[in-house]
């Protein structure tokens, strides 16, 4: 096992060799090459034997859909074999169970520890003594999505196991996702001739990802990490700083790594789904989750929320509510119910109770309340003459959404639910115990691992991210705008970004190359 993080030199070497082999392979065999490369990558980057889990999940998805589904006609009509539904359910349960055993160990270890502390006879469960599987959270979702799509007739069950295996193991997305749909990834199997422009575009995307991952993320982490590691010694404004810095750290780390992944895939002519779309421009939590980790949100919407909404039980319950409380209440009830399960699963996917609370339940409550209160708030705004079209109001809504997400991330970053709650309580120390805004001005920030250059870079980075975000809103992608500029400006921008990454990136022997935050899932 060698260091194969997507910012490592080994990965660059692998990518260069992979591109060479891929484009030297005749078109109709290219997907076999991709499969070979994906398996090689897995064996190099992960604990090799854990590929068994990937193989097992792929086999279950392949065999059970083959057993369950007889045919899907051109109109998407599905003909099931005998006990087809049971096979589909069994496949999902088996695949989810493998994930639960390997990645969801916190869900059974923590309760057993809790019980064991009170009733010593209660068995203290331990994690399975096997290495953690690489990319399991992502390929598990893809496999379940594939099975459900086949069951619904949106995809045809794959006849060739190796094609399905490639879909689940495609190497760029094994690191940090995104979660793809089978029908949207048919370009995996299509021949691609070498195109310089494709390589250029991929490299540009990768460079942008490196900027976010290597230059920005770690620097914001330098404020966040000490506060979370040693909360006793930090209070007042430090907690607020950590609160507001962490979303930027996570965003740059996660979206940057996804940019690299998308750039790599683009070099092979494969378009993976976007995972981020200027999330901090969102004016509501609902909008935020349509812009943040979009592939997981879409997955939860398609495979959890919609099935819940369409289920007989929900429909019947909705009818009952409608009868008693009216149409509006019925709608609120069913949507809230669907969202509950959707958020619950998204929380569970992250692998710990704290995520269920901080990500799942928290956002479910926020979004449900906002849905229920929407009309009332609109009326209130009108009564108060709030200028809802003004820039100030839009800015306020963005800041509010950012703040709501920042609170959620406390659960994400803290050691546990208790620590997260203590950290949130600690926010009040700024107003009660230690009002210390001078920390921002008296050089205290420089007592962390940050230097003046770092602080300047952080400010510059935020400005660059904002400009890039605005350009993305306007031109689809910032690079589209850059591509329309003259050669001098274009090269100045790309070379400038390259120089910033090369000089100010957190890489090299003096940098502890910790995994990306979302690589653990």
């Amino acid at each position, binding site marked *: 096992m060698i*260091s194969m993080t997507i910012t490592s*030199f*080994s990965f660059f070497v692998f990518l260069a060799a992979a591109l060479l082999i891929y484009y030297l392979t005749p078109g109709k065999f290219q997907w076999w090459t991709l499969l070979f490369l994906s398996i090689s990558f897995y064996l190099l980057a992960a604990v090799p034997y854990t590929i068994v889990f990937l193989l097992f999940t792929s086999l279950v998805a392949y065999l059970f859909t083959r057993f369950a589904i007889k045919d899907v006609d051109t109109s998407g009509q599905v003909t099931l074999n005998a006990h087809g539904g049971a096979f589909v359910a069994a496949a999902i349960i088996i695949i989810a169970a493998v994930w639960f055993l390997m990645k969801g160990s916190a869900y059974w270890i923590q309760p057993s520890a809790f019980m064991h502390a009170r009733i010593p006879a209660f068995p203290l469960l331990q994690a399975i003594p096997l290495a953690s599987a690489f990319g399991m959270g992502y390929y598990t979702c893809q496999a379940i999505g594939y099975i459900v799509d086949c069951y619904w007739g949106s995809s045809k069950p794959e006849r060739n196991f190796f094609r399905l295996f490639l879909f689940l193991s495609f190497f760029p997305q094994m690191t940090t996702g995104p979660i793809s749909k089978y029908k949207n990834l048919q370009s995996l199997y299509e021949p691609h001739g070498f195109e*310089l*422009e494709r390589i*250029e575009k991929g490299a540009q995307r990768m460079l942008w990802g490196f900027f976010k991952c290597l230059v920005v993320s770690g620097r914001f982490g330098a404020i966040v990490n000490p506060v979370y590691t040693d909360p006793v010694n930090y209070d007042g404004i430090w907690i607020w700083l950590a609160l507001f810095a962490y979303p930027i750290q996570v965003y740059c780390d996660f979206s940057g790594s996804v940019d690299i992944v998308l750039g790599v895939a683009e070099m092979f002519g494969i378009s993976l789904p976007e995972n981020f779309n200027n999330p901090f421009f969102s004016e509501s939590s609902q909008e935020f989750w349509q812009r943040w980790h979009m592939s997981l949100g879409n997955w939860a919407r398609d495979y959890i929320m919609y099935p819940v909404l369409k289920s007989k039980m929900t429909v019947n319950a909705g009818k009952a509510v409608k009868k008693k409380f009216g149409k509006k209440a019925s709608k609120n009830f069913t949507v809230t119910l669907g969202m509950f399960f959707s958020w619950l699963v998204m929380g569970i996917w992250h692998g710990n109770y704290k995520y269920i609370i901080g990500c799942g339940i928290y956002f479910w409550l926020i979004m449900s309340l906002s849905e229920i209160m929407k009309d009332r708030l609109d009326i209130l705004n009108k009564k108060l003459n709030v200028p809802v079209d003004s820039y100030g109001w839009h800015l306020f809504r963005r800041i509010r959404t950012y703040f709501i997400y920042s609170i959620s991330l406390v659960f994400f970053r803290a050691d546990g639910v208790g620590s997260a709650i203590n950290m949130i309580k600690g926010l009040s120390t700024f107003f009660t115990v230690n009002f210390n805004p001078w920390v921002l001005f008296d050089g205290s920030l420089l007592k962390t691992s940050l*230097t003046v*250059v770092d602080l300047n870079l952080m400010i510059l980075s935020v400005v660059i991210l904002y400009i890039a975000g605005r350009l993305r809103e306007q031109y689809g992608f910032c690079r589209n705008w850059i591509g329309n500029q003259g*050669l001098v400006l274009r*090269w100045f921008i790309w*070379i400038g970004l*390259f*120089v910033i990454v*090369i*000089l*100010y*990136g957190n*890489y*090299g*022997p*003096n*940098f502890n190359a910790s995994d990306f935050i979302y690589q653990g899932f």
Partner: protein
Amino acid sequence: MKRIKCIRTVVFLLLIAAISYGLSGIVSNKDSYYYKNQFFNSSTDFDVLIIGSSKAHEGIDPFYLWDNYGISSYNLASSGESIQVSYYVLKEALEHSNPKIIFVDASKISDEKNAINCGYGFVHESIDYLPLNKNKLEAINYASKFFDGGKLAFLSNLYAYHDRIDDLEEEDFNRKINYDKGAYLMTEVMQVSGLTGEITDELKELEGGDGVVYYRKILDLCKEKNIKCVLLNIPVDGDHLTTGFQKQVNALMKITEENGETAMNIAVKPELIDLDFDHDFGDPVHMNFMGAAKLTDYIGKYLVNECSLEGHFDDEEYVKAWDADKEKWEEQRIEMLADKTEPVSYIFGINPENSYCEVYMADKTQAEKHYALDYCFEKMGIVPQTVDKEEIGSLDMKIVVRSREDGRWLAEQYFVCDDDNKTFEVHKAE
């Protein structure tokens, strides 16, 4: 159109490569360049090479050998360098030079298996400036096993040093080279403990650690190239000359002699060079320029008397080249005074043959309190002058360096007594 696009891409990539190359040069650590540049660009060959760690780096003065014996030598030793790294440095050096004798510092020949016994930064300092060829690649291949970052951390200076961007100085843009033929002579004076412990002639049973294996490789290389190899155990203070280390050196001496080579165990016989533990050390494990002069003189006599090595005083090419370098080195010595932090190292930093110091003090009695300051005055023939404090900027001491030839001003520095009134420290202007 397609062709234009290809050309444009190639130009872009060349531009990126050129920028990377330029940046790499700027951010890389210059120590290796600083100390080894003169060796790789010398117009004359060297009869003697010195390899090893800082003890040798600071303990043998090539200019002393030249001035007194006409021997052409280069000090390739480097801070913290283990014998494994020295082996690769020597291998490369022998591609550029045909020395007759090599001195090997015994202090970093470790008997530990699978250990490089050398810090990451020290490996860089040793090999960065070696040309990228088979020898350097072999060195990288060996060293990279012991550090994070892999081979790339030694192959690419940009990769290794990009985080120096915050610490860049004038020297990073305007490279300097060391004219002291690779040596670094300390001018500080520290009183260290003499040899009070047991001196043993017992031998350690060597376990064949990496250091020993590589020392044998050096012996083999010297044999192959018909070069005399001398193992040198350089003096340290009594506390650092442990029994374990002595036994190990004794065992290495045995290997050396079995190979028909010579070993000099000066560390246990400091009387051979009349070493003064009160004044000849810069710190407990490194001799200063006075200790280095004594050791180098001993080596010089050995080279002339035992090895019949002839000097180059009659060789015009050598004389011209060494005189030119000496002139540059004298200028560099004056420049280096700016880095001295206390008066003893400042005064000893000059060459009394061509410059002298004038010392002005507000209170001459303070000199007694600073270790070796009186000794320094005496040695350099300085009589401090008492002046009003106002005349020396309300500080405690001013030293002016002048040329012996015409009395012209060369440098000056102000010093203040610290709170305890025991030492003088350089005064840094606000």
